[in-house]
């Protein structure tokens, strides 16, 4: 069979590696919020059409202005797992404003053809191939939607909500 360049762009070896050995895999608990102004928020994301599930836990510091720590657990396809893994690496330790900028840039990256992706994306550019597979956008954004929800809920203490991908 003739190799398919779209597929090769989508499933780069580094990406498959992230999906097989996801980084920051695990959960945070309330006990991880030790300092004043810290909160742990957990959000579960489901993709009902395919069954992918993810739980993103974040520790917010500075009364919500900083994402001090982030982990995820879950199961799903290579795209959703790699996307979650890369997301934790790129967002951990950043300010809320930076994270929001990343979210927006990432969304553009995977939904439209992008000539010069912004530098801030770094390794997230591994997911650039997704834009040619509109049905897989939901996989790539599942963890991100949970993160968005977690930021919105930064005001409550430990909450678990569900978002639908």
């Amino acid at each position, binding site marked *: *069979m003739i190799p398919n360049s779209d*597929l090769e762009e989508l*499933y780069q070896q580094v990406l498959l590696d992230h999906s097989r050995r996801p980084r920051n895999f695990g959960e945070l608990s309330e006990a991880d919020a030790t300092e004043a102004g810290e909160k742990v928020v957990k959000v579960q994301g489901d993709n009902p*059409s*395919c069954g992918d599930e993810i739980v993103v836990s974040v520790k917010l510091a500075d009364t919500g202005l900083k994402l001090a720590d982030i982990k995820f657990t879950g*199961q799903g396809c290579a795209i959703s797992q790699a996307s979650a893994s890369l997301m934790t690496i790129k967002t951990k330790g950043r300010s809320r404003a930076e994270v929001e900028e990343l979210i927006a840039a990432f969304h553009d990256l995977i939904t439209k053809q992008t000539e010069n992706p912004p530098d801030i994306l770094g390794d997230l550019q591994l997911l650039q191939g997704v834009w040619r597979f509109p049905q*897989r956008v939901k996989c790539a954004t599942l963890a991100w939607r949970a993160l968005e929800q977690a930021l919105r809920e930064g005001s409550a203490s430990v909450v678990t909500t569900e978002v639908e991908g």
Partner: protein
Amino acid sequence: MTSDSVNWEAVRADFPILHQEVRGNPLIYFDSAASSQKPRQVIDALTRYYEHDNANVHRGLHELSSRATDAFEAARNKVAKFLNAASADEIIFTRGTTEGINLVAQAYGTRYVKEGDAILLTEMEHHSNLVPWQLLAERTGASLRFVPVLEDGTLDLSKLPELLTPEVKIFSFTHISNSLGTVNPVADLCRAARAVGAISVVDAAQSAGHLPVDVQALGCDFLALSGHKMCAPTGIGALYGRAEVLEKTPPYHGGGEMIVSVSLHKSTYKEAPHRFEAGTPNIAGAVGLGAAVDYLESIGRQNIAAHDGELVRYAQQRMEADVPGIRIIGPRDRSGLVGFVMESAHPHDLTTYADRYGLALRGGHHCNQPLMKKFKLPGTSRASFYFYNTKEEIDRMITILQEAARFFS
């Protein structure tokens, strides 16, 4: 049984959609369990209806209305004969299997299921034969019970005696599992239900277009099917209900066509099937279902079943022999679909991969979340066959799966 008497190539030529390329590769449509393709004969029946006979049914005294009514009722007769119902009055037109089961749950269930009663299902039900009963159980305070599924994908019938007790008012189960391919012993299950005074409801979504289905031989009280899975248009299905049971079933929807007389505060309702068909029905859809039934009969369901069987056995054998890291889920003796997992690739990734080579597989939970959980699977990939598919297509699938196994490992 062999299916040699049929010219399968000519049959395949009846399906315009199959003769196209997808991304430069010939389309291989192995997703008929989700929805089948339509032969020219069915598409033409729709066009003919809209170009010559279209009008509303039942209420009209003019020529087009008579033609539409005749065509609509002729379709009902065809479906009745197709299922060997005792009378066409036992056939209710619905949108599909899901609506058929919801109709039974709402109209029959709400009246006859009470707190303390039980509804018996199986662990292999499609969400469409599970959620309507959850809603009914919630409304009535009844409980749900489940016949377990064994490791090999068949029902654990040894548990039936303790589950199917006199509290059970409804026993609803699928004829063929859409993810495992298991063919359940419907007649036995219906007999067992009747023995404790429960009615039986058969989900025939996967069987009606694939093998002979005889409601009298099966002995079921209700049987629901979807047209779109058996060569008919979308938006039409049928619910068979045994006359005796339909008679005592209260209305489902209210509206035109289902009443004898109406005053502002009270109405009296027609007999079945019209009592259950409020409003303008999917007339063209029913006509298309009639044409689909004619088409399937012209090939012969025995022949279709034999052909499906040959394909699935061939696929199974080649997958096991020639594709590394594949595990097939479900019993060896199966209907025309095969669910599997590939060690190195998640079902969605595999489906995306296959699609780039023109191969339409389905990947996911197949509306069987509880079953997937039980089998500890994130989902499966499924190749489902119908009589218009060929061994050559299966050969090509094998090549694609081999390449995928290499690609993802």
